[in-house]
């Protein structure tokens, strides 16, 4: 009996998890309940789509998808009640994965809300749009809880493939098709890198389980393929988060893809990829990755901000801005694990709320055929539509990092973590960049308030669903800007769990004083 357990343990340690040992328990299913619920709703949308007539069908499908996200949030709550491992140590439910589950599902809900009007105005009639969003979220949610490289890869593919299709949804627009194809080709290339990295890592350590890899690497001298593997995985994930030098696809894809999809792409898959990166970087600790991240962070911030300055298309401008923000986020990765993780988590949340809001306004304003997306179109918006302009202003100020908005605390925590880790130069590059970055956001504000409109740009009243989406983003941005304590505390606790579990040998005194500071 005893030898049998010992045998099973050695088997677990080897390549194949012992599938025959035990069947999944009910708890295992609870721990992926949000994914199950979202998939079911996605399938309902797919099944109902041909049965409903085109005009009314759109609305109903959208409402079903929205309900799906709400049910997904409820399922996340249930999932949160039973933290632990599931499916033979492939999935882990902890504070960290719950945080990202809530984040990506909430993002999907807001995107669905802001898509109603867009789909109607652009005359895109396709129920699978909503299904694709739901399936994409399944992949992203799974990315945040998977602790097994192969499962991470599968989740990454689920999320990527739906994004590829979503990017090309303005079917009869050449730019959109170009965006989709470009995204698909480059994206497949990048995920191939990731997969290659996984394979190399498996060769170097004999496992694809993150915790086990970490143990193997800590046990002895680090084999050379492990370095290469981490670098390759970083290439794959760096592409997904649009970090320089893997960012070249971003402006074209963001420009061509439908506006609400861009809002989605620039937040949810990024958040999920950052979640994976956090696990990979902080749990599989390979020396040298620090410098890769350092360089990528500095490059992303600088290239993103400098290029954004000369853009005249708002979508392109926001694309470059998202590259810059990926850079700020990577600064947190270069900092010490516990401090950096919580700062990065807070940043993803604040950035998601802000950027989604900004894109929701852009979506509404773009109008049929996305005609109004240049900076000049925003001239005089402050007069013709004061409320919409004020809303966009708040989001832009948050992107600059002005106090009272979530963006301020996000930057603040990231740089605070970097200073704490003694990354003075990276911090200086970062703060200087955030100063320079203010310029191009300010350009939009200048256009809206300080110039008179020269051409007739129709501004339609904001429909209810979009107003709801904007209100949600606004509330989240201001909440994170005025009362950041709650979210940050949660992020710190779960970061502590994550890092403490993975690297117990880490001195526990450093994380406690993380951003908190000695009372």
């Amino acid at each position, binding site marked *: 009996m005893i030898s049998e357990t010992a045998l099973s343990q050695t088997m677990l340690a080897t390549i194949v998890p012992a599938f025959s040992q035990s069947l999944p328990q009910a708890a295992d299913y609870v721990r992926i309940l949000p994914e199950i619920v979202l998939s079911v709703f996605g399938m309902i949308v797919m099944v109902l789509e041909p049965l409903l007539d085109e005009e009314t069908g759109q609305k109903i499908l959208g409402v079903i998808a929205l309900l799906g996200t709400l049910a997904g949030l409820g399922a996340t709550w249930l999932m949160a009640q039973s933290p632990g491992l599931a499916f033979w140590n492939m999935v882990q439910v902890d504070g960290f994965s719950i945080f990202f589950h809530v984040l990506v599902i909430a993002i999907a809900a807001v995107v669905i809300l802001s898509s109603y009007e867009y789909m109607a105005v652009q005359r895109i009639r396709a129920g699978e749009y909503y299904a694709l969003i739901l399936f994409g979220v399944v992949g992203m949610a799974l990315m945040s809880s998977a602790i097994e490289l192969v499962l991470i890869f599968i989740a990454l593919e689920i999320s990527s493939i739906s994004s590829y299709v979503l990017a090309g949804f303005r079917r009869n627009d050449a730019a959109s098709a170009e965006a989709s194809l470009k995204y698909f080709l480059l994206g497949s290339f990048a995920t191939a890198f990731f997969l290659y990295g996984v394979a190399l890592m498996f060769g170097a350590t004999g496992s694809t389980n993150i915790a086990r890899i970490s143990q193997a690497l800590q046990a002895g001298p680090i084999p050379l393929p492990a370095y290469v593997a981490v670098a390759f995985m970083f290439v794959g994930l760096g592409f997904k988060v649009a970090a320089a030098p893997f960012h070249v696809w971003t402006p074209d894809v963001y420009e061509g893809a439908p506006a609400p999809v861009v809002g989605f792409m620039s937040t949810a898959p990024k958040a999920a990829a950052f979640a994976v990166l956090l696990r990979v970087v902080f749990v599989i600790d390979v020396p040298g990755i620090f410098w890769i991240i350092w360089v990528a962070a500095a490059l992303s911030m600088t290239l993103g901000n400098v290029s954004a300055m000369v853009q005249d298309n708002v979508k392109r401008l926001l694309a470059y801005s998202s590259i810059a923000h990926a850079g700020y986020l990577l600064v947190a990765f270069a900092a010490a694990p516990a401090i950096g993780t919580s700062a990065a988590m807070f940043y993803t949340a604040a950035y998601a709320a802000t950027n989604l809001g900004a894109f929701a306004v852009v979506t509404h304003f773009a109008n049929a055929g996305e005609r109004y997306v240049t900076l000049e179109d925003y001239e005089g918006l402050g007069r013709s539509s004061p409320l919409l302009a004020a809303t966009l202003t708040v989001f832009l*100020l948050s992107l600059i990092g002005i106090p009272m908005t979530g963006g301020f605390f996000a930057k603040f925590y990231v740089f*605070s973590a970097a*200073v704490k880790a003694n990354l003075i130069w990276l911090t*200086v590059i970062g703060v200087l960049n955030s100063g320079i970055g203010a310029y191009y956001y300010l350009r939009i*504000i200048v256009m809206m308030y300080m110039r008179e409109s020269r051409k007739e740009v129709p501004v339609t009243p904001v429909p209810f669903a979009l107003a709801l989406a904007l209100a949600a983003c606004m509330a989240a941005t201001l909440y994170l800007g005025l009362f950041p*304590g709650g979210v940050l505390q949660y992020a710190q606790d779960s970061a502590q769990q994550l890092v403490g579990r993975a690297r117990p040998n880490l001195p526990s005194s450093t994380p406690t004083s993380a951003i908190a500071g000695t009372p």
Partner: protein
Amino acid sequence: MSADTWRPYILTLVTFAPLLGGLLLILFPRRDRDIRIFALVISLLTFVLSLHLPVYFDRAQADFQYQVDRQWVSAPNIHYHMGVDGISLWLVVLTTFLTPLCVLISWKSIHGRVKEFFILLLILETALIGVFVSLDLFLFYFFWEATLIPMALLIGIFGHERKVYAAVKFFMYTMIGSVFMLAAILWLYAHTGSFDFVTIRERIASGAVLKFPAAAQWLFLGFFLAFAVKVPLFPFHTWLPDAHVEAPTAGSVLLAGVLLKMGTYGLLRFNLGLFPEQSRQNAWWVMTLALIGIIYGALVAMVQPNMKKLIAYSSVSHLGFVVLGIFSFTQAGLNGAMFVMLAHGVSTGALFMLAGILHERRHTYEISEFGGLASPVPVYAATYLVIVLASAGLPLLNGFIGEFLVLSGAFQDKAVYGILGATGIIWSAVYLLWMYQRVFYGKVTHAVNNSLSDLSGFEKVAIWPCAAAALVMGVAPILWLAAIDPAVQAALNPLVRVASRMVGP
């Protein structure tokens, strides 16, 4: 209710009353008259509330008073910590004093988007007061950045021809300057675990901060750059003339009257307070820059054809005096610097209002467009004269006291600083009186000026308080200095200690 029950709440009340008013204004219907009256009521109410501070201020005590200290965010350890000492006390009152005057002077001159204008003005007031009363470095940075947006919008929306250029320039200069301060604040937090000004000061002074000696010079520079841009110290001053010329009158008044003082206040409070040793070491070049600013600002002011630009450059010159006084590290110099800040706020604020009045009537600031105005607008001319003399430093008016104290402080430090600085007084008399002569004396050169209307009721109510304040400050400076002196002495103590250590055995 007695004054004591108010004590912990008064600063919060004074700081946020304008913001509350601004938020209420959002709900107002667009009836311009109501909006103006409401803004005036709110700003006057804030002024009255703020008078509570000097009235119940304990002048014998150098420590911070009316303190409130609550945890705002637990991690990071951010406190809602406010308090005033003799240094910040009067700057708060200066802000609340000037804001209602700004409302009055904008009564007729702002036509379109009245609601937005007054909302921004009130938000700006809250941010400005917040800067002066914050004792938590985070809170301070929070308000510091918060002043940027309303000011940039005031310039950018309500300004003159090149308003957008000026607004963006103003924003970018200040923003980039202040991010270095953010980095320095973060460093201090990382190594002390606190944002609290008093705590950090104590830890640094007791030598408890590791790695501090190596980083101190950089930290000093980080703070210094943010403040130097704001002051503005030569060579960071180029945003100022643009911002002033393009800003609406009320914007200029608050910009010159209060915003620039944020810089000098910051130098005094943070650079001197936190880094006494580095302040000593860097004093020579800071004072050199200040002297260049005094003389250069004055010379450039002299040749300006544009009245508003002239006043703007005179600010560069006057603020040079403030920095000179601060870095002389003498009791007299610091007292003088504080007094110049207040005096400059009152008299330059009034000068901008007067220039704005002329612009409203003639739509130009060109000095050559005027001449002989004394006969068509005698009341205006007389008021202008009082303010010009106050600004030029005539004894019995407010400019004299401060500059005299600064110069005596500079002499105590090094005679050459005093001698060079003293020329600034001559220069200021030259450019101001010459401008006055060209505008008001002689015959009326442009016929259109004959029909100019004199000061209206609103304008009198807006400017005469400044003139009265200039006179009272000149005659009875002790009313202000009684509170300033102990605080300045306390600020000097660590510097004196440093000096004795540097000279010592």
